[in-house]
């Protein structure tokens, strides 16, 4: 692909609207615009989640709230490999996915605060948000349920005869659900275009992979269905995009499903009420200091001469402004009208 075209892709918003209608070649290095965009998108998710955590502490967000901090490189890298029409579906740890899909941070934050201008009019909350417009199919609160549904999206692609690919994200915890393997079987049997992205953040709520999984190499979980798997450093946005592009190309070529195991780490507890006593402070500190996806990518860009320390600060300031605006919007927006209680039950 000529580089001029890539610049155009990045300028259009690249990952967010992935609107140029072509897949990313697998051997491509990030352009400068893409480098900046990846950094900025990861930072947006980080700052958004930090703000969500703060709002939760203030009582503005209720119920369950699962933060994505630490895992940002995965959705940002994967999103860069999608093209218009590809579908995304995930679990309840979904704020990052929505932002990566190009959903409006204001609408997402307003859903977290349960307001009428939220993506689900305040009726879904943190775990249940959707955007048909951005091909984001949720936001599912039951561990593993999104996997057969994502497989069904791929089925629809096959049925319609288009070349779209469905991207089904799930965690190391969900990877032990039976319905995941039921899905694997049908997906390979019918050669459905679905990329299963296993976000292995090492803990299924409080249970470590070692304590929950007989085989902890999740990239091999498709082996008995002949589904190939790739293990990826999920803390490296470029590695994610490279593997993602390979996976998308595999699916688009009609070869069936593929698994990407993203090795990552969740900095916060499982949800806001989880003190995360099941792991040591040292373990967390070590990951933050040595593997942080944003820190490391920022350093790389400085080394490459793409940005200066001041540029990074400026990007952070811009992102913070977006997040502050979304928080203001989300706390000022009115609650849903009482009549909304009874709407949207049936078509």
């Amino acid at each position, binding site marked *: 692909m000529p580089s001029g075209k890539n610049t155009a892709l990045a300028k259009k918003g690249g990952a967010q609207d992935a609107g140029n209608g072509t897949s990313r070649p697998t051997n491509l290095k990030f352009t400068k615009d893409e480098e900046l965009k990846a950094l900025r998108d990861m930072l947006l998710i980080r700052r958004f989640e930090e703000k969500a955590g703060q709002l939760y502490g203030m009582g503005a967000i209720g119920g369950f709230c699962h933060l994505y901090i630490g895992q940002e490189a995965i959705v940002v890298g994967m999103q860069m490999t999608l093209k218009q029409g590809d579908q995304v579906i995930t679990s309840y740890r979904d704020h990052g996915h929505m932002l990566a899909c190009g959903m409006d941070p204001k609408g997402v934050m307003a859903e977290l605060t349960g307001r009428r201008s939220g993506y689900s009019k305040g009726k879904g909350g943190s775990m249940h948000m959707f955007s048909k417009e951005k091909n984001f199919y949720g936001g599912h609160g039951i561990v593993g349920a999104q996997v057969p*549904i994502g497989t069904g999206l791929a089925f629809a692609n096959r049925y319609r005869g288009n070349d779209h690919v469905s991207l089904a994200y799930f965690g190391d915890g969900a990877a032990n659900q039976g319905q995941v393997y039921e899905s694997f079987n049908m997906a390979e049997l019918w050669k459905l275009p679905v990329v299963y992205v296993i976000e292995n953040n090492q803990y299924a709520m409080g249970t470590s992979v070692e304590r929950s999984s007989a085989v902890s190499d999740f990239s091999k979980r498709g082996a008995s269905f002949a589904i190939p798997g790739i293990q990826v450093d999920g803390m490296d946005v470029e590695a994610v995009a490279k593997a993602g592009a390979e996976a998308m190309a595999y699916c688009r070529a009609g070869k069936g499903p593929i698994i990407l195991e993203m090795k990552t780490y969740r900095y916060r507890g499982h949800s806001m009420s989880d003190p995360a006593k099941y792991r040591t402070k040292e373990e967390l500190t070590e990951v933050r200091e040595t593997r942080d996806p944003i820190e490391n990518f920022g350093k790389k860009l400085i080394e490459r001469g793409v940005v200066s320390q001041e540029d990074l600060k400026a990007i952070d300031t811009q992102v913070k402004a977006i997040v502050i605006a979304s928080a203001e919007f989300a706390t000022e927006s009115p609650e849903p009208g009482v009549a909304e209680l009874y709407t949207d039950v049936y078509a």
Partner: protein
Amino acid sequence: MSTEILMPALSPTMEEGKLAKWLVKAGDVVKSGTILAEIETDKATMEFEAVDEGTIGEILVAEGTEGVKVNSPIAILLAEGEAAGAAPAKKAAALPAGEDHKTVADKGAEKASAPKADIANDPEFPEGTEFVNQTVRDALRDAMAEEMRRDELVFLMGEEVAQYQGAYKISQGLLQEFGERRVIDTPITEHGFTGLGVGAAFDGLKPIVEFMTWNFAMQAMDQIINSAAKTRYMSGGQMSCPIVFRGPNGAAARVAAQHSQDYSAWYASVPGMKVIAPYFAADAKGLLKAAIRDPNPIIFLENEIVYGKSFPVPKLDDFVLPIGKARIVKTGADVTLVSYSITVGQCLEAAEKLAEEGIDAEVIDLRSLRPLDMDTVLASVKKTNRIVTVEQAWPICSIGSEICAQVALHGFDWLDAPPTKVTGEDVPMPYAANLEKLALPTVDDIIAAVKAVSYKA
């Protein structure tokens, strides 16, 4: 000593069948495993093997004969050295003799007799509509075929729906007409294919997901309730799940606890879904077509024993019924009988017998369980002042429980007797024939309940 070869029962619900072809003739020597005949049930054509050694003495039922009752003699088997024409032995003790045997036979007869209901007079059908008799099975198949012809987005998936032609033959011929892209055999993987169907529906396809029976849908309950039913609401109306889940519900015959359960009340309690449970073939057709077109997730509860029953079906090009409307299948002045699915037939039988005793029962077929047409029920109660609900399900938190509660709330002033339920017994379904019969409501139970609310017991 010669023995009778009896017409075999080749499925749990088979009561009679067609002797399609004899593969032996008088004088042939047979031994255990010899294929004697081909027998056609309402589901399939099966080979029938000899169990004993001997010589075929006489063929009693000619090939091509239809409606041969299970356990009736179809041939005589002679023992070694015996001449044709020897007196057959008394019936082997394969079945319990006397009263018990009669009980089984009676039960069969009760099921087989199609009750008289004058659905042709229903204002739903335009005047002058021509009717043809059709089984519920064929009506369901036609409904799917018509909708698949009409809309490319409609497809059928489930276990054995394609090459096998349907475990209960509901999808017969659909693979041949629509091909494997649209008629899809799934692995035995209810949780998975239900979720897959929901995902396809989220994308805008219109799946018909067949459960071989609703008992197996419990494996998929999370996807049905949490994903299909709730997502429209949880998405603030953005997402739609136009999917039909269908299959046989309730007790079949002699398949015991894990395969004999009526799930009506479970599904009818969930907002976001519509629940349909027809009895007549016309309703099966018109409501299944409506279900396939409906943008909401639909639970379509059929009944295995009803599949083979024939009823008049209107000969209309595009016969679609409204979901959520009950039908008064027999008008009456003295008591309201409210039911759905197979027990509608029992209500009609009970009404006939009650008429002989001077009690004029009105019979309402709910057809839809959600939305529940309480207007029709309450209007009837205002006229009759008495209500008996009838269903096969367990008694606690049943459809009848809900109707009785609503009648007590909204029709209290019109009631001359307590709203009364006739239900299945509060036990898992037993296997033994006599116990199974006791676990299910009977026509006599309905008559007794009507007499009780009429103070004529």
